[in-house]
């Protein structure tokens, strides 16, 4: 159980980092999604792994339960990363449509010129 969770976090993070380093919009979005999956699984495991244990404290009887807090944290993290990915997709689409390429790096030589034109024109 531990080895499965640990290696899945590792593989997801490795894949995510590799894709982010591609520096093209689509791989970067996929990479960040993979990294957020990895962090979700990681957060889930921070409350220690327990099988078949409900996340509720039982007042009477045997007190086998899994830690409920990481599950709440994971839920919040999933919602936030989902929203952030949506924003990222929109910004990436906007940048792609404006610039006609999907590079994340900004090393085009006429950037300054372009910018000053915009400033004076507006």
């Amino acid at each position, binding site marked *: 159980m531990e080895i499965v969770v640990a290696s899945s976090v590792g593989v997801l993070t490795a894949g995510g980092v590799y894709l982010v380093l591609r520096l093209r919009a689509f791989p970067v979005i996929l990479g960040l999604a993979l990294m957020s999956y990895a*962090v979700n699984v990681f957060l889930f*495991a*921070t409350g220690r792994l327990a099988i078949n244990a409900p996340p509720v404290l039982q007042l009477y009887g045997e007190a086998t339960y899994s830690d409920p807090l990481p599950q709440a*944290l994971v839920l919040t993290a999933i919602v*936030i990363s989902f929203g952030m990915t949506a924003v990222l997709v929109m910004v990436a689409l906007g940048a792609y449509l*404006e610039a006609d390429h999907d590079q*994340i790096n900004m090393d085009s030589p006429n950037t300054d010129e372009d910018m000053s034109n915009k400033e004076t024109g507006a």
Partner: protein
Amino acid sequence: MSHWIIAPVILPALLAPIIAFVMRHDISLARAASFAGTIALAAITVGLLIMSADGSTHVYTLGNWPAPFGIVLVLDRLSAIMLLLTAALALIVLLHATATGWDNRGRHFHALFQFQIMGICGAFLTGDAFNLFVFFEVLLIASYGLMIHGGGRVRLQAGLQYVVMNLAGSTLFLFALGTLYAATGTLNIADLALKVRELPVEDAALIRVAAILLMVVFAIKAALFPVQFWLPATTRTRRRLWLRCLPS
């Protein structure tokens, strides 16, 4: 327990949707509401500073849950001063944006601005590490909107870079929080300070990893020296960045 402690979060949180939904077609109305909100915020933070001036720490338990289990807001002298600083800077930025007509280039400047103030105030006030992450995301998502405010090729590209950088940073932030929680079993910042002291020696490495991760995250978000490479492209297109950098 004074309810004024949560006012710096509630006020912009209520004002922003009103500006976004009711005043979106009337820029002068939005400006007036935004100014009124920010001035009220400044007044509240002055009151909070006076309240905490004697050095006492005020704790506001959200939902009245007891401290290590529920989320708390903490007001002490440091957070009160930072809140006042935020409100003062926000007023200056608002004045600048209005005077230069910057807020009229896009649609939702004032709503996003209020949301960002909400995130910054929350980040200063919170006494819970995960809640800090949530407020960070609130202020970040507002800053993404402000960053690409007005559009244009260079601004959108710099914005994309900025969003990617911060998303990667947020992932690291979550890894750090997960490690902290796994090692200490708490996310309440005051409780963390106690638990870390009593930690067995063999767990010290975990805490060290978490601390370094947190430092890297805040360095990325504040653009400290070794990891500042995203900053030049961003500041060239956005002058209000220093407001964003404050909480880090």
